[in-house]
């Protein structure tokens, strides 16, 4: 087993997607085998969107092969479709880029246009519905004017345009898109963040028109961060893209990519992408690169190990993984990471990374008594916080045989649900975005933030109770006078039958707090507050939270 299999933390690609990628990228023999399996195992009528986008590449490599005969007609048609679609999208952008140059607006083609033209050398192989272009922030107004002059319009409402933090989406009357970036990535939307992209940019000849684009390592970085951000859709096309970037010339500069990831503050995302790449296409990335990444970033290493432990995968760590982790962590911490976590605060530390509430299932008998739990091993240290333990010896015996996860059976009366004390109502809120937002009157929005359980107790919600933990705000006017106390709630967990949801002490949740703009335009203040529904606002317990400015426009 490869060492870094221990540290994988992304949802794996679907089996069909992996086969498809191997068919497109692997050696001829392995690729043909993967193609045959993909044909045999895939229902073409239910092809997922990511696989759909890889079909042109599959057709380009295997269209003439007998193994592809079953779907040949539609594969060829999909190739034609994207040749048509991507050609129109690229052609629509061409005069805009020429006009940018004439107006003195510097521009870099990023993502699909750069990859399709320069690295895949065929836009059919890199499906795109828009082009992404990076400009200097100072040129935004000029670029916007050029786009409008050329018949493009902002795709969404004016209110959204005000809230865009790194790019505006434009569309023309043929549904081609133009994504105008003044920062390449929303994760690093700050002045100067993209300086390296600009300084290393190269220029190609696009049928008589110069086209600038970032260096291949920078394009790989952008592809990886976008892919990890959109992991739900997991457009595995990015792996095909990165393979083309690597194959373009010898000596792909992994050190540069990693250093730039550090400058952009996206190493967590890039490391996740590198791990996925190493698992799906191990021939593309030397394992030494992954070692080097961790060696140069001890904080990231700790975060990775913390995630492994919090996801209760410690008992599945390979000997190599344990040795490596021990080397990284040092002997003092080793026992905490790889023992059974005897100390409560150790667990609090370990679960600091997971950004969502955790769950375990409880089984009850007809009288409602708890007679079993389905749980992960890493939750053992928390049991005393979640339950009143009437018979510790019986519980310990039941836990002795628990593997990585599983169900333990308990006698009636061994466990009861624990009620929170007033000490549980302590929290800290950190904003993940600037403390101000603008919304049209009556519209909904969100504020990105982190909520930390700063108490010594778990926040526990049993089954279908209404007493949920969540975050909201109190609406004040510009003079800080209270306008409305109760506002929309954003709960940290969903009540489910037979389930105990909890947020461990020290756990840090990532939240998108719902905001509803008042009907009257003006300036407001949102006094954030954590609450336990029907029980208490945390502010009533002496807690203090940030204030966010809200501007409501007509």
């Amino acid at each position, binding site marked *: 087993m490869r060492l870094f299999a221990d540290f994988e933390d992304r949802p794996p690609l679907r089996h069909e997607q992996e086969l498809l990628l191997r068919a497109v990228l692997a050696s001829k023999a392995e690729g043909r085998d993967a193609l045959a399996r993909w044909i045999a195992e895939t229902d*073409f*009528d239910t*092809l997922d969107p990511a696989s*759909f986008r890889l079909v042109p590449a599959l057709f380009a490599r295997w*269209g*003439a092969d007998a193994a592809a005969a079953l779907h040949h*007609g*539609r*594969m*060829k*048609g*999909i*190739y*034609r*479709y994207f*040749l*048509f*679609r991507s*050609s*129109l999208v*690229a*052609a*629509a952008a*061409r005069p805009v880029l020429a006009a940018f140059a004439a107006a003195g607006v510097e521009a870099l083609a990023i993502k699909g246009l750069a990859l399709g033209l320069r690295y895949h050398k065929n836009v*059919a192989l890199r499906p795109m519905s828009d082009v992404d272009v990076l400009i200097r922030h100072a040129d935004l107004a000029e670029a916007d004017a050029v786009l409008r002059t050329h018949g493009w319009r902002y795709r969404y409402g004016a209110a959204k345009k005000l809230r865009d933090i790194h790019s505006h989406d434009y569309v023309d009357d*043929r*549904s081609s898109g133009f994504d105008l970036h003044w920062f390449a990535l929303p994760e690093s939307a700050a002045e100067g963040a993209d300086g390296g992209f600009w300084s290393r940019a190269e220029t190609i000849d*696009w*049928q*008589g*028109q110069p086209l600038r684009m970032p260096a291949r390592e920078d394009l790989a970085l952008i592809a990886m961060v976008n892919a990890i951000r959109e992991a739900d859709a997991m457009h595995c096309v990015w792996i095909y893209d990165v393979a083309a970037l690597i194959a373009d010339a010898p000596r792909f500069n992994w050190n540069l990519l990693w250093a730039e990831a550090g400058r952009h503050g996206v190493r967590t995302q890039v490391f996740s992408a590198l791990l996925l790449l190493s698992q799906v296409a191990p021939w593309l990335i030397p394992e030494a690169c992954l070692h080097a990444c961790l060696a140069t970033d001890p904080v990231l290493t700790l975060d990775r190990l913390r995630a492994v432990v919090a996801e209760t995968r410690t008992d599945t760590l390979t000997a190599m993984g344990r040795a490596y982790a021990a080397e990284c962590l040092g002997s003092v911490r080793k026992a905490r990471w790889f023992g059974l976590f005897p100390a409560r605060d150790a667990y609090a530390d370990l679960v600091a990374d997971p950004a969502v509430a955790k769950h375990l299932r409880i089984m009850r008998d007809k009288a409602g008594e708890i007679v079993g739990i389905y749980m992960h091993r890493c939750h053992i240290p928390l049991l005393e916080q979640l339950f009143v333990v009437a018979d510790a010896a019986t519980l310990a015996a039941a836990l002795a045989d628990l593997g990585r996860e599983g169900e333990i059976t308990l006698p009636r009366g061994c466990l009861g649900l624990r009620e929170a004390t007033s000490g549980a109502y302590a929290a800290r809120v950190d904003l993940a975005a600037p403390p101000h937002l603008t919304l049209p009157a009556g519209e909904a929005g969100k504020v990105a933030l982190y909520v930390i359980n700063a108490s010594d107790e778990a926040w526990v919600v049993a089954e279908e109770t209404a007493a949920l933990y969540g975050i909201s705000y109190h609406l004040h006017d510009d003079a800080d006078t209270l306008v409305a106390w109760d506002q929309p709630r954003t709960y940290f967990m969903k009540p489910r039958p037979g389930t105990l949801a909890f947020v461990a002490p020290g756990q840090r949740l990532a939240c998108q707090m719902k905001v509803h703009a008042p009907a009257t335009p003006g300036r407001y203040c949102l006094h954030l507050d954590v609450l336990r529904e029907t029980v208490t606002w945390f502010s009533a317990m002496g807690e203090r939270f940030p204030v966010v400015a809200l501007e409501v426009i007509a």
Partner: protein
Amino acid sequence: MYQVNAPRVVHETLEGETVVIDTVTGLYYTAAGNAAQLWQALAEGADPAVLATACAEAGCDTGAFEAFCDDLVASGLLVGRAGGSVTVALPALDAALAPPALTRHNDLQELIELDPIHEVDIAQGWPFRGPETP
């Protein structure tokens, strides 16, 4: 002598079938058989007179070839070429095939919206609509 009206026009020949895309009008053309071969030769810079001779020798209608060339120019797909012709391999024409012509797909919106998996003829693929769809 002609050349493809690039970058406005994109073209590719796939398994003997030529696809031509006019990115300004949004028109999509396909050509097969003699038309695909003649397009390819013209796109590479072959002398039309040489191609007309090849048509005649193959027993094809040279008038149809000339009309084909005129149509390509009128449609803006080919433009006049400065400089001399290029020697290319002569196409293997078949007099039994239909006179050369491009098939034009001119409903841009329909082309974009036609689902390439579920709404197409399974044997031919996009942009050929399947028989069961309205």
